[in-house]
Structures are given as C-alpha cells and as structure tokens.
C-alpha cells in the first residue's frame, strides 16, 4: 500500500502558503530592495491576502483552493509575479482536480505541470537569477526521488533541500531576466526575491503535505 496525503480541506493547505508569504512580507521586500523595486513582499502579500478573503471559512478541494490562489494573483497583483505564480498554481490545480488523496506520483505530476505552465509564458531558464532557480531543481529532485523509490517523506525533504540550495545559488548569479537584469554584474551578491519567495512556498507545501501523510 503506497503512502497518501489526505487533504480534507484544501483551504488549510493554501492558508499555510498564504501565512508563510504574509509573515515574510517585509523580509521579501527588503531582499528585493537590494536589486529591485523593494515591493516584492508588498505585492505578494497583497495577492495572497486577496486569496485569504476569498477562501477563508470555505470547504474546498486542494485543486479548488489553488485555483482561487491563482486567480487572486493573476487578477489581484499583475506585474511579473501575478502571471508567474498564477501559472504555477494553475498548473498545480489542474493536475489534481477532484482529488482528496494524493500519492507521491500525484504530487510529482502536480509539480511538473506547474513547471510546464510557467514555461508556457516565460522564457526563464535556470541560472537567470529568478524563481526558476528554486522551482526547477525542486521539481526535478522530487521526480528523481520518486523514481529512486524514496518514501513520500524522504522525497519531500529532498525537494526542500534542493529548493534551499536553488535559492542560495541565486546569490552568486548575475540576473539575466526581469528588471534586475539591467544591473549586470551589480546584481551579484544578493539573493533573488522571487527565488526566495518560491523557496518559502515549496518548503511550506512540503511541510503541509508531510503533516498529512497517512
């Protein structure tokens, strides 16, 4: 019998994601201030809070709750982060429609679909100094862990490590995409704000899923 994550109410999991962004609002803006506008945390918290007002107190599948999160970001904040995260969460939501129990293969399919939705609208590559530097290695290592027959919990933890390493890798990168790319060499030496928020989200997702493994 393979392990499954049982999600009674998807709102609880998405609320965990909302809380991790909202509680890191100032930290994310501060990181962004070094090479960006300094508004990453402000915009992200704004979009995630919009979602909170839409889902609070409801009973939704994880797919439905993620769709609400995607809509909140796409319609609520615009910019670059609205469409980027909006597409990732749409991809996650679409691949687990109707499910209340997720196998690690389901989670893998969900993560891969988020990645491909993102690639549909953004040409970003690993090494560009953006959220892709966190997301892609996280997804790829989770895939590999599932292939290697790791347990659900092990695979989630391997993904968390990869996300953190991916985030940290942006420190020494020169930005090749987005507004920071105009800085050239001057963008080196600081973390990318998008890679950092992506690490918070991937890590929180892993923790929220792990807590629900039956």
């Amino acid at each position, binding site marked *: 019998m393979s392990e499954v994550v049982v999600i009674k109410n998807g709102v609880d999991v998405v609320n965990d994601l909302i809380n991790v962004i909202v509680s890191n609002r100032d930290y994310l*803006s501060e990181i962004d201030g070094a090479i960006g*506008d300094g508004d990453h945390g402000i915009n992200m918290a704004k979009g995630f809070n919009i979602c909170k007002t839409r889902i609070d107190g409801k009973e939704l599948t994880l797919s439905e709750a993620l769709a609400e999160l995607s809509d909140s970001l796409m319609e609520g*904040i*615009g910019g670059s982060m609205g*469409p980027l995260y909006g597409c990732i969460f749409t991809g996650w939501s679409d691949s687990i429609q109707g499910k209340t129990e997720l196998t690690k293969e389901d989670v893998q399919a969900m993560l891969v679909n988020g990645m491909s939705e993102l690639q549909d609208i953004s040409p970003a590559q690993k090494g560009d100094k953006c959220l892709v530097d966190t997301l892609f290695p996280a997804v790829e290592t989770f895939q590999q862990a599932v292939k290697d027959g790791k347990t659900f919990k092990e695979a989630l933890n391997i993904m968390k490590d990869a996300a953190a390493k991916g985030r940290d890798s942006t420190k020494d990168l020169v930005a090749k*995409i987005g*507004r920071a790319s105009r800085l050239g060499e001057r963008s080196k030496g600081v973390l990318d704000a998008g890679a950092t928020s992506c690490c918070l989200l991937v890590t929180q997702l892993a923790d929220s899923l792990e807590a629900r493994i039956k």
Partner: protein
Amino acid sequence: MKLNRIINDPNLVVEDAIEGYVAAHPEFFSKTNHERVLKYPSIPQQGKVGIVTGGGSGHEPAFLGYVGKNMVDAVAIGEIFSSPTAGAFLDAMKAADGGAGVACLYGNYAGDNMNVKMAVKKAAAAGITVKTVVANDDVASAPITEKEKRRGVAGEILMWKVGGAAAAAGYDLDGVIAAAQKAIDNCRSIGVGLSSCIIPAVGHPNFNIDNGMMEVGIGHHGEPGINVVPLQPAKEMAATMLEPILTEGIFEAGSEVVVLVSGLGATPTMELYIYYAEVDRILKEKGVKVHRSYVGNYFTSLEMMGVTLSMMKLDDELKKLVDAPVHSLGMVQG
C-alpha cells in the same frame, strides 16, 4: 522619516488617482466594468481599429493621459511601476474593439509581455483579433545587437500618436500595426537621472544617485544606465545623450525628425527648455531637421529629477500621421 506626499493611503494611490482623473476629465475618461481600465467615452467606434495600451502607474501622464481622440482608446492601469493584470489588458481590448480588431501598443517589460500574451490569447477565445507592437526605443538598455531586450520608454508616445492617427484615418489592423511598428523602429531614446524616486507603498528611495552625479541611460523605474558621471551643464548633457542615439546611424544629415523631450517628474519645465535649446543647436549643426518638437512632462517616473530624449525619423507617411490632430490629456494638437 515621514513620507512627504499628497496622498491618503500609500497602498491606494493608484485607485485614488484614477478617481481624480475621471472626476477632472470626463471628456477623456469613462470608467468600465474593470476598475483598472479607462476608455475614451465614444469608444468603441464601429469599424475603427481599437488602440490599447497599458503599463505601471507612476509615469503620468503616461499611460492613461494618452487616451483621447485620435490616440489611445482604452488603457490598462497597473500598480506603481508594475504591469497591469492580464484581466485588465483583456478588458481594455474588449472596450476598444469596434469589430475591426485591436492594436495593443505597449513597452518591452517582462510583466507586460506576460500579461499581454495571456490577454491576447483570451481575447482570441472571445472572438477579438489583437495584434501587438512592443516598444524598444531605449538605446541604453541593451546593445543594438540585442535590440529585442531594449526597454520601451518615451518613444511609446510617438508610437501611440502614429498608431492612433492611422486607426483614425481608416487603416485596417495590419496597416495600423505596420505604421506603429515603423514609428518605434524609427525611434531612439535615452534618459538621464539626477535623483531617485519613492514608491509610496515602499516608503524609501528606490535607488541612489549621489548629489552632484548623474546616471546616463537610466530607465523609467531607475534601472541602472550606462554609467554614472559628474553632473554636466545642459549643453554637455545634450551632447552626452545625443551621442549614443546618433551613433545608431539612422539619423543623418538631411533627415527629418520629431524630437520629444520629457521631464522625469521633478524637473522644472524651464530646465527642459534649456536642455531642448542645446539639443536643437546640435541637431542643426549636424544638418538634422526638426520637423516637430514636444517638450514637457510627457512620461515621468514619480518625482525623479532628470530628462529623457526621444527622436523619431520621419518619412512621408509618418510625417502625415504625426501631424494629424490629436486631443488627449497628455497631447493636444490641431
């Protein structure tokens, strides 16, 4: 430090400003079902190609100020320095569509590219044909060999002017797109920044330029330029800024051009004219003929001190379209 600004809530500056624009200028702005979309009152006009643009706020009178007769029909309005949502672009396209298709003329930024791309897809699903031109007139933002990476700056205004006049003259969608594309292809811009700016919700300066210095090639959001040099008199500043524009080789002796000089928000208008006199003098020396000039605060960056210079080379078609009458908040002519 207390933010010294005329606002209510730093998080609601865009909403509050839209209220003011609509209240002050009902002749230019009608609200739509989308709170971040404004349109020209008599739009849509059956059979006319709709002109849509959009971008982050903080650049006023851009983008909304170019909604008007013979210019932009509907505008999507973003947060300060942040792209409008795909939904806002989509609703602007719907508002502007008079059955002849929509030309979405906007600037080359990652967020705008993604949101417009999604909106175009959704518009197609709703039966509206949208074609786009992406402005990339800023010579300082990437070398000519990587022109597709260049940002759109104040040259966008000339693109809207030409595209809007073409649509008003009865061009079809492909014709409008071709004219707007030619306008921006014939356009080169560069900016110089002397001070930073503060996004109200952030509350502290977006970047830093030391007193007595100027950043050559600065972007509309404070993106770093080519280099930071000691502040120059207007005469030298004009030469410094013209040099990278003229080395692109599209403006030669005998060329006829439009020159657009815009302040970045904090520059006294008087100084824009001091600067323009120097640009005009150098162009005369080079034998470049200024057919028409615009000097003022056309495309700003909150309260940044500085100036942008845009030049567009004319041919017979562009000349006719640039000279056509226009009536908008940001530009009145004829």
